[in-house]
């Protein structure tokens, strides 16, 4: 496949979304700090929002708010934007709940580093 620069330029949002998705997944999988893992999940969610909103984008179009005085215009697709509003709220709820679990974990183990917690747990099992 010949690398076509215009292909990259035209689909820069999609590429960005995919790259963000992988960055988020990498953060979740490799970092042992629980808060960093939550940040990784948030990055993944953001990448989906970017992807979804880019689907609805149309070149030269304006935000889908009718203005009776100016008349007909091209609007972007309103449905993805509406869905993303829901998606953001869902992401907020998940983040809040996971942070509260982390507070409790910190109370129980005294740390939020996953590898240290694993060490503490293996010692507990041995005893």
């Amino acid at each position: 496949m010949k690398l076509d620069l215009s292909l990259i330029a035209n689909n820069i949002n999609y590429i960005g979304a995919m790259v963000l998705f992988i960055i988020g997944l990498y953060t979740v999988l490799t970092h042992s700090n629980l808060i960093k893992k939550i940040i990784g999940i948030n990055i993944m969610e953001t990448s989906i929002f970017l992807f979804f909103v880019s689907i609805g984008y149309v070149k030269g179009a304006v935000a889908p708010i009718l203005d009776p005085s100016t008349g007909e215009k091209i609007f972007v697709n309103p449905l993805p934007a509406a869905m993303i509003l829901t998606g953001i709220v869902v992401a907020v709820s998940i983040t809040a709940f996971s942070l509260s679990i982390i507070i409790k974990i910190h109370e129980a183990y005294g740390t939020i580093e996953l590898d240290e917690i694993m060490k503490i747990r293996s010692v507990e099992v041995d005893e």
Partner: protein
Amino acid sequence: MDDLFVKVTTKMILPFIQIYGIYVIIHGHLSPGGGFSGGAIFAASIVLYTLAYGLHKGQKRMPHSISSKVETGGILFYIGIGFVGILAGYPFLTNKAAGFPMGELGKVMSAGLIPMVTVAIGLKVMSTIVTLFHTMLEED
């Protein structure tokens, strides 16, 4: 956080933030914004107040007994609006056909159930964010 400047500035800008939040909620069906963004803006004002004046005073502004009622009330109100459609002989959450007043396009008092739902969502989001913030502060 016992800083006079922060406290005075907070007191000064608090009404403006709150009015802006209410504006965004009320004009949800006319301009960008709506229940979620407006509720979040309003909640930000109370979060700011709590940050400046401390948890105790912040909780007095928004006691837990009230916020839990607002949360429940928001959803119950939403369900109630939905049942108006069923009572009128249409499916759940019907707007125009169920006889909500539609008003004139582009005016604040228009669009049937949309402003009502937006206000319910706005209240709900506001109290949720504030409660989350206060609950997490209490834990420390």
